[in-house]
């Protein structure tokens, strides 16, 4: 049974970039920064492509919100194999509720069977959108999706999806990463899944894929056209880097270590 899956592709700073806070403390210095698709979202795109391949075809619709710069991330997902892209044109800050609101409206319009989002984005690590979205849609949710097999396993090499969809698409079984290890849940569909790091190893955008992506459609919306308030309800008052770590010390022996732990660190 062909399936339709909605995925996200947030534009975030490349995790290899060195982030600096600007002199006014109002934001980061953007000059010279590289941007990428949020790695957790990329894992979501990969999982969606694997599910579609396993279930005899279907559609993967990728969504990004931001200025026209986000086309770069949408094209990346299209080059990986997504079918269609949706760009929500928005300039300025965004809060999690606006993002979830836009996704909710798009899901009501697109009617996918499943939504796969990154568990969080690596810029401000909020981890909220998936949960809001499931609640507002009245869908079930499975956050921190992972798998039992390692990333070196045969299942990973042959690009098997880790999410297990019932053939009639009535349920989905998700292995979740939790504090104590892994937990397996079965959810009624439709469902919002958010991805954790070990769910899969995303494929490269192939050169033919990149060339094909040029002719794939990018549909444009705005928060207003979707009926969502685009004004951020969160104001950033100040931004600063965490204090630099102090240099460590060497202790001559175990006794000195225990002493320091007792007297200085007061950890014992």
């Amino acid at each position: 049974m062909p399936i339709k899956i909605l995925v996200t592709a947030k534009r975030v700073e490349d995790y290899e970039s060195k982030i600096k806070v600007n002199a006014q403390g109002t934001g980061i210095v953007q000059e010279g920064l590289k941007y990428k698709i949020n790695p957790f979202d990329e894992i979501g795109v990969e999982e969606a492509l694997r599910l579609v391949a396993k279930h005899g075809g279907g559609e993967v619709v990728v969504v990004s919100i931001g200025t026209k710069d986000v086309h770069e991330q949408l094209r990346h997902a299209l080059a990986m194999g997504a079918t269609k892209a949706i760009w929500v044109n928005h300039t300025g800050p965004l809060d999690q509720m606006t993002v979830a609101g836009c996704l909710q409206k798009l899901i009501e319009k697109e009617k996918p069977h499943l939504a796969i989002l990154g568990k969080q984005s690596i810029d401000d690590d909020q981890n909220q959108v998936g949960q809001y979205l499931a609640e507002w849609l009245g869908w079930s949710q499975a956050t921190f999706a992972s798998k039992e097999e390692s990333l070196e396993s045969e299942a990973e090499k042959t690009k098997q999806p880790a999410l297990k969809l019932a053939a009639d698409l009535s349920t989905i079984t998700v292995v979740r990463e939790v504090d104590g290890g892994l937990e397996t849940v079965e959810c009624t569909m439709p469902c919002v899944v958010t991805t954790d790091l070990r769910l899969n190893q995303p494929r490269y955008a192939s050169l033919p894929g990149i060339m094909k992506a040029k002719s794939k459609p990018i549909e444009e919306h705005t928060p207003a056209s979707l009926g969502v308030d685009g004004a951020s309800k969160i104001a950033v008052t100040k931004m600063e880097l965490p204090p630099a770590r102090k240099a460590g010390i060497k202790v001559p022996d175990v006794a000195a270590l225990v002493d320091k732990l007792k007297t200085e660190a007061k950890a014992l």
Partner: protein
Amino acid sequence: MNFDLTDDLKALQETARKFGREVMRPKAAHYDETGHFPKEIIQQAWELGLINMTIPQANGGIELSHLAQAVVAEELAWGCSGMATSMIANDLALLPIVLAGTPEQKEKFLRPFTEKFLLASFGLTEPGAGSDVAGMRCTARREGDHYVLNGQKQWITNGEYADQYSIFCTTDPAKKHKGIMCLVVQGRPKGFTVGKHENKMGQRASNTVTLTFEDVKVPVENRIGQEGEGFLIAMNTLDNSRPLTAMFAVGNARAAMEHAIDYAKQRQQFGKPIADFQGIQFLIADMAAETHAARLLTYQSAWMLDAGQRNTLVSSYAKRFAADMAMKATTDAVQIFGGYGYSKEYPVEKLMRDAKLIQIYEGTSQVQRLVIARELLKGS
């Protein structure tokens, strides 16, 4: 005039860069040490469309622009120029067919490469005919509906593993360049033998062998172009591939520069990082300026091909400048690393050995100078 890479080019570069960083580089030292053939890595490159970039869309290929191919070539060479040589060997071998094949020949000799992982070799050089291409002695005698091929080809990249060969030979050595033609040899016909892998100084991941033909029958329909057109086809092929070879030098030099910068910042002497010394700074500054100059020169030579312009002069500038530049940059990188640079424990001595070959293959630095001078001095 616009020096920005388009979004498409940036996306292609991103994939090639990621492949160079995550797939090629971690294995570069291993294949350099063993001299084994990195077939699995080249197959992965094939799956991503990083080889056979030149095959026309009409034959199932992606037909990348020359500029795009150059952008990709830099990243592959940054990963490992030995592996890159083996990867781009396919494009070099398929170019004569792309440039001069009939529609039927293109379908027959190019399409299979888009459907299956296959390797091809370009056979021009002979034991006695290197820079003097017209001095070749590999002969093909016409007998009815086939040619009978006799002779030897030397320094043939991927020759041991290739499924198809573009072999340049002559109907009569006395005719010099007017006797040359190009034949496509498929598989291992009777009388065709492959010599042992050359134990090379650098680019050791690329397979290099001698091919010997003894009364090898090749169907006449495998002839690309006419008898006597082979020299021109070979020269056109090299005009097309020269920007890629120049880009290998750029990728190799960029790798050396990055290693040198990282090392200079952390290596302490006289109580401070050696990057604080002007003697080191000047070496790095030259590497950076010259790598960038070579890249732009090469981009221009590729851009000219895309614009339908003859690029012989500028691509010879690019290949000459980039190859000599990479030799200097990698030698200086070894110098910055000092004793450690001379050790195989560190990555820069490999880059220096690899760079040497770029001054030699696909037209030595001296041949490039001859071409440049000939272009400038001809006429009037």
